[in-house]
């Protein structure tokens, strides 16, 4: 096949999807940019308004705070599971994998509802505590920061497990054997072999989880309170409640910029890995 022939074949296969994406993904993004600049006015007014708005600044801070802490907690939880999975023989690993895949595929609405049943005022935990202590216990565990954190870490943990497991499985077993022969202690093995060599998985996992949590909408809306309004909820508020589309679009542009910046390390890591392999 000649080069021209090759391109023509490729065009035939790729162009339908590319055209749909251009029309339904690229154009809407341009619409956001255009709207954030006040349409034909091309002014930065919406951005200036955002930066002086207390509501926006508080919600930006809340978003960063929740995203960072939820990502770190899910990293710890996911790492524990990935370590356990990596130790299993392949057959048993496939079985344990279902325990990660089922929550991975469970709808975020099901999870949010489940947490209102578990953590709610008359929820399972309060019921058990009331029974244990013999008095009415009603710890507030939803519609506050605690509820958001539980819901988010629950949702994000599987997304850490997959990349970390992949890099744990890529570690050469000979290293462990060598460490064992040298009678290194478990902690030392973990900190000199396991942890550094799983770094690519950690970076990939944490950055994808951060990217996801910046845009979280359902969990803060259903499990959070007034203090836990994240940027995505603010977009919803401006779009549908106050009909201030310029503000909503400006937040959208900022969210997009943050996401692009954050996914850079993962992309960079992958390119380095590919370069290393070549």
């Amino acid at each position, binding site marked *: 096949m000649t080069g021209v022939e090759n391109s023509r074949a490729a065009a035939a296969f790729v162009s339908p999807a590319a055209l749909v994406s251009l029309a339904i993904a690229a154009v809407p993004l341009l619409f956001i940019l255009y709207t954030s600049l006040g349409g034909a006015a091309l002014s930065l007014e919406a951005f200036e308004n955002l930066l002086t708005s207390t509501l926006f600044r508080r919600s930006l801070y809340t978003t960063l705070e929740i995203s960072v802490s939820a990502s770190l907690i899910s990293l710890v939880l996911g790492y524990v599971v990935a370590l356990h999975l990596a130790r299993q023989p392949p057959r048993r690993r496939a079985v344990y994998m279902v325990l990660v895949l089922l929550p991975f595929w469970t709808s975020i609405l*099901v999870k949010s509802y489940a947490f209102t049943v578990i953590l709610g005022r008359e929820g399972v935990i309060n019921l058990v505590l009331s029974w244990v202590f013999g008095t009415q216990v009603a710890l507030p565990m939803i519609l506050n920061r605690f509820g958001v954190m539980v819901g988010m870490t629950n949702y994000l943990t599987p997304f850490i497990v997959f990349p970390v497991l992949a890099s744990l499985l890529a570690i050469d077993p000979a290293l462990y054997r060598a460490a064992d022969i040298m009678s290194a202690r478990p902690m030392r093995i973990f900190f000199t072999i396991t942890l550094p060599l799983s770094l690519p998985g950690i970076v990939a996992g944490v950055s994808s989880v951060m990217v996801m949590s910046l845009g979280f909408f359902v969990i803060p809306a259903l499990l959070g309170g007034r203090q836990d309004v994240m940027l*995505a909820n603010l977009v919803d508020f401006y779009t549908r409640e106050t009909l201030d589309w310029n503000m909503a679009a400006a937040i959208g542009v900022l969210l997009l910029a943050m996401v692009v910046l954050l996914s850079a390390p993962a992309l960079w890591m992958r390119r380095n890995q590919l370069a290393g392999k070549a």
Partner: protein
Amino acid sequence: MSDAFDLKDPLKRRYRRFGTALACLVYAFMLVPSLIVIPVSFGTQHEVRFPPREFSFELYQIFFSSAAWTGPLLQSLKVACLTTILALATAVPAAYGIVRHDFPGKKAITLLLMSPLVIPAIVMALGLYLYFSYIRLTGSTLALVLGHTIYVTPFVIVMVAAGVQKLDPNLEFGATLMGAGRYRMFATVVLPQLAPSIMAGGLFAFLISFDEVVISWFLVSATTTTLPVKMYSSIQWEISPVIAAVSTMLTVLSLVVCMLTAALQRSGRGQ
């Protein structure tokens, strides 16, 4: 890492047991929300309680007998089916073209096709809302299907591209040598071999569309409300116990899709 020989060391054994115990706690934490809705769904409408005091199918009866729930259910089924068809029709050839061909602008096009994986759903939802308001499409089923198609396309491409990479290019080359045109070769040689990946990609597309809430929340109208949107507003405003029944059915659906794709991937590997 599955080395049994080092377990003679008691210190190591203790660490390992500790690690397993921690892992079990995290497994439980991950699974509990998916599972707890099942017993609750067999309770009654008067109290949301775990464990329920009496066993009944009341919540399911309410769900299937009220148009406020079955309407969104049918709408979600419709949107998910149409999305799956449209996404497969565009993403399967695209995945093949990306894996097998080099062409100018390949990186840019791949980036464009995969971008919905990174772009927050809320940003896509807002963009689609502004755009569809402009062309007067907001609120229609078509708007939902188009929005969902963009959203599921990268997942289908990833699944199918992995399948294409396992194919033997010599078969395609042979068919071309024997005089089969590009499309005939694709339809008779490539597609049949890709069946397991296409099925798996289609299942993913269906499930993701069926569960999608953020984009739908921005695009639905009163007559095109989907099940997740109905569920979202229901949890927000009233917490009707019927949600437990819906949740159970959604969890079962996730489980079925999860099992089916695992089986498909195994059969794909066996070839």
